[in-house]
C-alpha cells in the first residue's frame, strides 16, 4: 500500500466509528394536497426506520439484513448524512453527524458504495476524472500527484492505470463496481456504507468484490456498514448483524452467535427460506405471507400475521428488545420462554 492511500490522520479515540441511538425516520407519502382534500383523505406517513440503535466499533463490519422495503437503504442514507432523521441521534467518531459533516476533514472520512454501479457513475466522465473528483474536492493532492493517486487507487482495486482513460460503459458490471470502490476510497475514508454492493453482480464476480472489500478492510483498517438481503453474503462479511423487519431491528448481535442459534422467528424464517447447496433436492421450509404494506403496518409485533408463535399479546403489544446471551431480540415468545 502506498503512503498516499493511508488514512490521513489516525485519531485515537475509544468512541465507536458510528453510533445510532433511537433513530426514527418518517416519510410523507400523502397524495398531493388538492387530491387529498377532494377525497377527504388524511395525511399518510410511512415509518421507514423505527427507533433504531446500534454502534459500529472501528475496523469492524456491522451488517443489516432484511427483505425489500424494510428500511435498509434508508438507514444507509441516514448514516452518511444524506438525510436527517426525524428523531434520535447519529454520532460519527463521537460527534453529532451534522457537525461532523460540516467539517471537510471529517466528511471526507465517510463514503458510500451503491448497488447499481452504473447509476452512480457519471457516464460522460472518464474513469480517471470520476476517481479524481473527491481528491480535488477535498484538496488531498495537487498537480501530478492527483494522477499518481488515481493510478494507485485503480491498481488497488484490481484495475489498470490505463483503464482511467475509459468511460464507464466500457466496463463490465464487476469492473464498474471496482471503479465505484476506487472512487469511494479516493478521499481516504475510514468508514464506508455499502448498500447491496454485490446484489447486481453474478456470484463469481461477487466473490471477487467481496474478497477485495475484505482485503481493503484489513489493509486500511476500514469500518463498514454493510447492507444486503443475502444471508450467506452477510455471514461471510459481518462481525455484528442486525435483522430488520418493517423498519425495526428484531434481532441484533455478534453474527456468529446469531447464525449459530437464531432466536427471533423472523430470523429463523429467513434462514429456513434459503436453499441448501449441501443437500440438493431438499425443499426449503416455505413460510406463508409476504411483508405487509408499511403504510398500514400490523398492530403490536408487526411480524404477527406471519408468525406461528403469535398470540393475543403479540397482536396488541409491541415487543421491546431484551438481551439473551449477548444478543438482543424483540419477541414476546422469547421473553415469556414460549419459544425454544
Amino acid at each position, binding site marked *: 500500500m502506498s503512503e498516499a492511500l493511508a488514512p490521513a490522520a489516525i485519531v485515537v479515540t475509544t468512541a465507536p466509528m458510528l453510533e445510532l441511538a433511537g433513530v426514527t425516520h418518517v416519510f410523507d407519502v400523502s397524495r398531493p394536497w388538492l387530491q387529498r382534500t377532494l377525497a377527504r383523505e388524511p395525511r399518510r406517513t410511512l415509518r421507514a426506520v423505527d427507533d433504531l440503535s446500534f454502534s459500529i466499533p472501528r475496523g469492524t463490519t456491522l451488517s443489516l439484513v432484511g427483505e425489500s422495503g424494510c428500511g435498509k437503504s434508508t438507514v444507509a442514507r441516514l448514516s452518511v448524512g444524506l438525510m436527517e432523521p426525524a428523531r434520535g441521534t447519529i454520532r460519527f467518531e463521537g460527534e453529532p453527524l451534522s457537525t461532523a459533516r460540516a467539517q471537510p476533514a471529517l466528511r471526507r472520512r465517510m463514503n458510500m458504495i451503491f448497488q447499481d454501479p452504473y447509476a452512480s457513475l457519471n457516464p460522460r466522465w472518464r474513469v480517471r476524472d470520476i476517481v479524481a473528483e473527491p481528491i480535488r474536492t477535498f484538496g488531498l493532492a495537487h498537480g501530478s500527484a492527483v494522477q499518481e493517486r488515481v493510478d494507485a487507487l485503480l491498481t488497488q482495486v484490481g484495475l489498470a492505470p490505463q483503464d482511467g482513460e475509459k468511460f464507464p460503459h466500457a466496463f463490465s458490471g464487476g469492473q464498474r463496481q471496482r471503479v465505484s470502490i476506487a472512487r469511494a476510497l479516493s478521499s481516504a475514508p475510514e468508514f464506508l456504507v455499502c448498500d447491496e454492493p454485490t446484489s447486481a453482480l453474478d456470484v*463469481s*464476480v461477487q466473490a471477487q468484490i467481496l474478497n477485495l472489500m475484505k482485503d481493503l478492510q484489513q489493509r486500511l483498517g476500514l469500518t463498514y456498514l454493510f447492507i444486503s438481503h443475502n444471508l450467506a*453474503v452477510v*455471514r461471510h462479511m459481518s462481525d455484528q448483524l442486525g435483522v430488520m423487519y418493517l423498519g425495526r431491528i428484531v434481532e441484533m448481535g455478534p453474527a456468529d452467535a446469531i447464525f449459530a442459534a437464531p432466536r427471533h422467528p423472523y430470523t429463523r424464517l429467513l434462514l429456513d*427460506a434459503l*436453499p441448501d*447447496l449441501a443437500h440438493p433436492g431438499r425443499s426449503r421450509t416455505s413460510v406463508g405471507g409476504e411483508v405487509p404494506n408499511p403504510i398500514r403496518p400490523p398492530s403490536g409485533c408487526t411480524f404477527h400475521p406471519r408468525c406461528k408463535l403469535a398470540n393475543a399479546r403479540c397482536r396488541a403489544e409491541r415487543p421491546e428488545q431484551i438481551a439473551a446471551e449477548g444478543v438482543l431480540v424483540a419477541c414476546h415468545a422469547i421473553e415469556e420462554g414460549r419459544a425454544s
Partner: protein
Amino acid sequence: MPLLEVRDLVVEFPTRRGVLRALDHVSFAIEAGEVLGVVGESGAGKSLTGAAIIGLLDPPGRIAGGEIRLQGERIDKLPPEKLRRIRGRRIGTIFQDPLTTLNPLYTVGRQLVETIQTHLGLSDAAARKRAIAWLEEVGIPGASQRIDAYPHAFSGGMRQRVVIALALCAEPMLVIADEPTTALDVSVQAQIISLLKRLTRDHGTAVMLVTHDMGVIAETSDRVAVMYAGRVAEIGPVAAVIGTPAHPYTEGLMGSIPSLEQRVARLRQIDGAMPRLDAIPAGCAFNPRCPRVFDRCRSERPELMAAGTTQAACWLHAGVATNV
C-alpha cells in the same frame, strides 16, 4: 425420444461490425416430466436459449444453425402462427417480471379464461370455473372474488402465482421459466419455488428452469446445464454437478458461493471475466481464466464429453471415456 431436443443450436446477431455468435452449438435434451436447470453468469446465453425454443428471439437475432425438436417434431422452422399455438398449448412460459406476462388492462380472470378457451376450447362457464380452480391451486386466497381483480391489485409474489397459473392452465408438457424468482424476496422465492415444484410434479410437466441462482437449481432440478460464453460447459445430474463438478468453470463457480454453514477467510475466486461475444478466445472459451489450462485448450475447442457422472466440454476428460 426426449420431450425436447436441442441439437447444435446456433444463434447469431448481425451487426454493423460483423456477426456476433451468441449461442454456439448448444445441445441438450429434456425428458418428459424432468426439471432441467440452466445456470451461468449474466450474458452466458441462458435467456437466448429459452427464447430460441419458443421462437421469441428479438430481431435481428436469428437461429443460424442446429435444430429444435418437440416430441420429435422440428419446431425451429415453423411459421409464426403455428409456433404461437405451440406456445401456450404445449410450452408455457414464466418470466422474471410478472408484469411482462400479465396485461395490466385486463382482469386476471379474463386472461386465464382466454388462455383456457384458446387452447382447450371450453365453454365460458367451464373456463371460468377452471380459472378459479387454478387460482386456488396456486394459492390465491379468496380466488372466486379476486378473479375479477386487475394485476396491480396483487403483490409481487401473488402476481407471480397468477403467472404460474397462466403458464400451466393450458396443461402444457413443458414450461420454460426464465429467472422466475429473481425479482422476489427470499421468503417469497421459497414459496414460489415449492409451488412450481409441486404443480409440475402433479401434472407431469417438464421444466426448463433458467436462473443464475445455484441454490434454486439445487433444490429444484433433476439435471443441470452450466452455460459459459454461449456454450454448454457441463451438463449432468444435479448432485454430481454441484458436488463433484468436472469442468474447471463449474468448480470455480461453486467455490465462489459464500456458504451459510462454514465461514472462510476468503472466497474462492475465478479471476477475470467472461469474454464479450466479439472477443471469444480460440479453443476452449474458458482458457484465459482456467487454472488448469494446457496447450491443446488454446487451439482446439472441446465438445461435451463423458466426465465421470456428468458431461463436460473440457480437454481434461479427453481419452478417459468415449464421446457420446
